[in-house]
């Protein structure tokens, strides 16, 4: 079992595990984060809900990566629906014009699991098959902005509170401007330009 877990962990792209730890396990315990089973679309909605709470902690690119990691690597997906047990009954002649019995229909899951969080965002479009639309510049911007937030904001604040405050584009900009002018904040014009571009991309 241990070998299987190890193999699964190693099989995942290294940055996906790191992202899971840094983004999801930043606020949640492992038991909570990995204790649920959802379908792939449901996972996308859960991750998107978390992203809306802390859009700078979980970027758009992270959301895709985390969903894929949860569903494909950690296999935190609902088990496939069991076929309905076959009922053995004496053969009776079936009239030709009647439809087949309801019991033989393929079961379809219409209800959401009980532990799925309420107030999820609306159904999302399917995940793009790859990140081909993202450019190197996007990745570079993500990395730069994340490093800047960690370096500048953590000088005074716990990062969790920072991510919680920067929740809308307008509020993020005014908060950044106010913080920049704190004596000794160290947030330069260049830093602000990077953070503004990043914010624009996230909201």
């Amino acid at each position, binding site marked *: 079992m241990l070998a299987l877990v190890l193999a699964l962990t190693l099989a995942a792209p290294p940055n996906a595990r790191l992202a899971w730890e840094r983004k999801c396990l930043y*606020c949640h315990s492992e038991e909570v984060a990995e204790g649920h089973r959802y379908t792939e679309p449901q996972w996308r909605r859960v991750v998107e809900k978390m992203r809306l709470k802390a859009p700078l902690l979980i970027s758009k690119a992270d959301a895709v990566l985390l969903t894929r990691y949860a569903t494909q690597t950690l296999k935190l997906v609902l088990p496939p629906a069991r076929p309905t047990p076959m009922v053995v009954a004496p053969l009776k002649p079936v009239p030709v014009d009647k439809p087949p019995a309801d019991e033989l229909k393929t079961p379809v899951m219409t209800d959401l699991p009980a532990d799925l969080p309420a107030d999820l965002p609306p159904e999302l479009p399917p995940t793009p098959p790859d990140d081909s639309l993202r450019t190197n510049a996007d990745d570079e911007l993500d990395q730069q902005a994340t490093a800047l937030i960690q370096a500048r904001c953590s000088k005074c*604040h*716990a990062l969790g509170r920072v991510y919680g405050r920067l929740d809308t584009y307008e509020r993020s900009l005014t908060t950044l401007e*106010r913080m920049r002018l704190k004596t*000794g904040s160290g947030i330069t014009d260049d830093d602000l330009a990077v953070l503004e571009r990043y914010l624009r991309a996230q909201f």
Partner: protein
Amino acid sequence: MTRWWVGALVLAAASAHAFDVTAAGSAAVDYRYVSGPNPPENPSTLGITGLTYEVAQKLVAEVGHGVSFTVKACAGCHGLEVDQGFGEVRVKRFFNVRAGRLNLPFGEFNLRHDPTNFTTPSKPLPYAMGDMLWYGREGFNLGIVPAPFVDNGVEVYGSLSLSKKVQLDYSAYVVKGLVGDNDIDWARSRNYLDINRTPAGGGRVVLTGEDWAVGASFTGGTYDPKDTLHYLMGGLDLYLRFGPVVFRAEGLARRTDLDPTATGYAYQVIDSWFLKVGWYGQVDWAIIPQLTLVLRSDGLQHFGLPIPESSIQPNARVLRQTVALMGRVNENFAIKADYELWTVTDAPFTARHLARLGVVVGY
């Protein structure tokens, strides 16, 4: 007067829908155990070996065009107080103005005086108030500068780019000033009315780079009703960051005039002033994002004539070594614990072991 401020806070909260209002708050509870018999007295509600608390709520209303209003109320050992209550106009990056009840930028620690913003359960000794051992007029009579450093006045501040990565931040202010009788009294200094005719002034400059900052602060004024007794404070601070390790150090000093006509001095009055020097060096190592190990060494040194009520010697000194851990349970909740070794010279006791356990909730 406090009722007016609280009213303003409530009104600001009620009208939250009219502006873009950002709210932030914190609550901290700290249990302290001091070893040894007869621990020195402390003004906290239940004494030095008991619990203390601090609660704060801040609202910032952005009304547009770079104008914002900030109100922050807090409660602690001295009851309900107004920590901040000012209007602010952000004109240009290099020139901005705020007026009202301000947190004066003196030293690096004062900017992050809220318990959610520092990693140890206690403040560094230069900023220590009733939290320190032997804090009263019979002892060291507090640290160098209060934290928060609250005063009423006007402040001009801004930032200048010196290169792509280096900038110079400045702040200059004119305020009511500190207050006292033959040494400064921080509790009276927070009163809303001035007691003399001369405003106090001060400023701070900080040079910041990619992962470093050096700063200098100064302030001075008169603190008695007759405008005859002066105080002058200065400080230097350093901030360095190496990945998950942050190093901070500060040195601060206050020269305070004494009243030569007062009676009860233990020594002959030759120079009617004393100098108090305080310092700290601190390393924060974020072992993992949720757990930070802190090592701190800080101290206070008194030079010159002790005030009449004091039983310390002219060159009394207190040193403290601290090992602390801060664990962040989640983004809103942290637990802090530390062990502190206090050693005191030229005072009635020599050493005390102190342990603290605190919880901090912030949003």
